[in-house]
């Protein structure tokens, strides 16, 4: 029951209708149903699985389906060490994802190479992909992953839907 002033419409008269911008509506739909593509490579994948399990349920944030198919997902979570041998596969899978797509680099190894400063490890997946959110930790707790997901949702909410260049 509205006790403050009428804001423009009366639900009793016009029904449950909200008027908003297309941008805001589309972003709201997108951010509350970010389907992750889990690029689970190493130990962080176990924490990713734990975030998907019942205690830290990631599906309450809309990421219900952890699709292993890039064509059906919009958020790639790179969890684990990206080696040079794996780098091209990661890039190829990223390319297969349809726009709009985002990337979370989970853990120290995906962000910067972590503690593996060696000949075989790509020093950060941002060398080959545009990363939106970095998560620190080795491995980050599932709560940290959920926090990153919320930040990601905040980032998606501010997106300009009708701009033609999404990947930058």
């Amino acid at each position, binding site marked *: 029951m509205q006790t403050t002033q009428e804001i423009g419409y009366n639900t009793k008269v016009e029904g449950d209708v909200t008027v908003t911008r297309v941008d805001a509506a589309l972003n709201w739909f997108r951010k509350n149903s970010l389907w992750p593509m889990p690029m689970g490579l*190493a130990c962080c994948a176990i924490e990713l699985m734990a975030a998907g399990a019942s205690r830290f349920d990631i599906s309450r944030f809309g990421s219900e389906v952890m699709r*292993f198919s890039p064509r059906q997902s919009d958020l790639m979570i790179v969890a684990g060490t990206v080696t040079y041998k794996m780098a091209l*596969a990661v890039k190829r899978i990223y390319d297969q994802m349809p726009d709009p797509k985002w990337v979370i680099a989970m853990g120290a190894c995906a962000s910067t190479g972590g503690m593996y400063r060696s000949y075989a490890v790509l020093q950060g997946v941002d060398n*080959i992909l545009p990363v939106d959110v970095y998560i620190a930790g080795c*491995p980050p707790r599932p709560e940290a992953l959920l926090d990153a997901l919320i930040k990601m949702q905040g980032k998606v909410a501010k997106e300009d839907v009708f701009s033609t260049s999404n990947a930058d």
Partner: protein
Amino acid sequence: MSSVKDIEIKDAAARAAEAAAGLDATDDMHGEKMVLNMGPSHPATHGVLRLTLELDGEEIVKAVPDVGYLHRGDEKIAENMTYNQFIPYTDRLDYLAPLANNVAYALAVEKLAGIDQALPPRCQYIRVICCELARISAHLLGLGAFAMDVGAVTVFLHTFTQREYIYDLIEELTGARFTTSYTRIGGVSRDVPEGWLTKLEKFIGEVRVNIDETEKLLSRNPIFQDRTKDIGVYSAEEAIDFGMTGPNLRGSGVDFDMRKAHPYLVYDQLDFEVPIGSKGDCYDRYIVRVEEMRQSANLLEQCIREIPGGAINVDDGKFVLPKKEKVLTSMEELIHQFMLVTQGTNLPPGEVYFGAENPKGELGFYIHSKGGGTPHRLKIRAPSFVNLGILQHLLPGHMISDVVAILGSLDFVMGECDR
């Protein structure tokens, strides 16, 4: 800042056209066989394993596994670090049971140092508790992932809930959920906190119920049995010849467990049985793992009852950092602290190999030392690396859907395989 590398991936149609152009020149009758790439990113390959399968319809004719997608250079890193500094890297080998890796590595270095018989009993009991807890944790996840791949998704969630309780316990003991870096050369980093053993006992009661529930969901389930019985069979001789260890070996009927044959820590004083399979198929390996979890629960109960008080580190200033009060007041401890932190433990030159019974098999460390605080060569004998060697031999003849069951039953971890 880091440089960005532009990688051009040609689109799928162009690549297919290129591949088809090259195919005419081969001898293969390319109308008959199909090459399927179970690529590094696949839900059922338990990590980044790539299998190139040549298929004749549904049946596999040739299988070529391709590992190394998680090769991080651990062995070369080890040559540049002191022994204690390498402990976090051992966590990330078999990242499902990090405590067991820590214990195996610490025992290997202590064998080289010659102090492995001088470990105080409390430290040994704590390490056994760590190993067995890690074993339950690893098998829970192994079975959960195996069941999920075969189709029983609920089991995964059940086992993960139990693992979360294990994580709670481990977090209270070591400070981290997993990747614990708990052991040190000469002992463990901190003592068992107050009331932890009571919580552990309570957990053991719960996990026993959960293991029974999991078994009820799977063992007599006709679908599970159809998918795993008589699949992936290899005999005891083949298992020994291919160097398999752990439940993969025992599932084929070889009665061998490092904890019984060459006991380390206090396993010779503890009472447990070793489950053995009979046929060597996926079902037997599954049953062996379930029974091993029950035996681990028994071992944990015995340890809780029998754990003595006392020191948790070897009483030798040359290996273990002395107490801070002593460091700041006494000269000898100050010098020990200085030497240990700057140069690391000074180990004698020589070579040593130590293998421990890890949940995945025999994790061995071969340390070749030329004296000093860093190893000259550290070779990690990874059970998953050796276990995967059987895939080329095992997979042909099976159907493509059996691959998933076989991979799940072999229960390997790529972090360990590729190091």
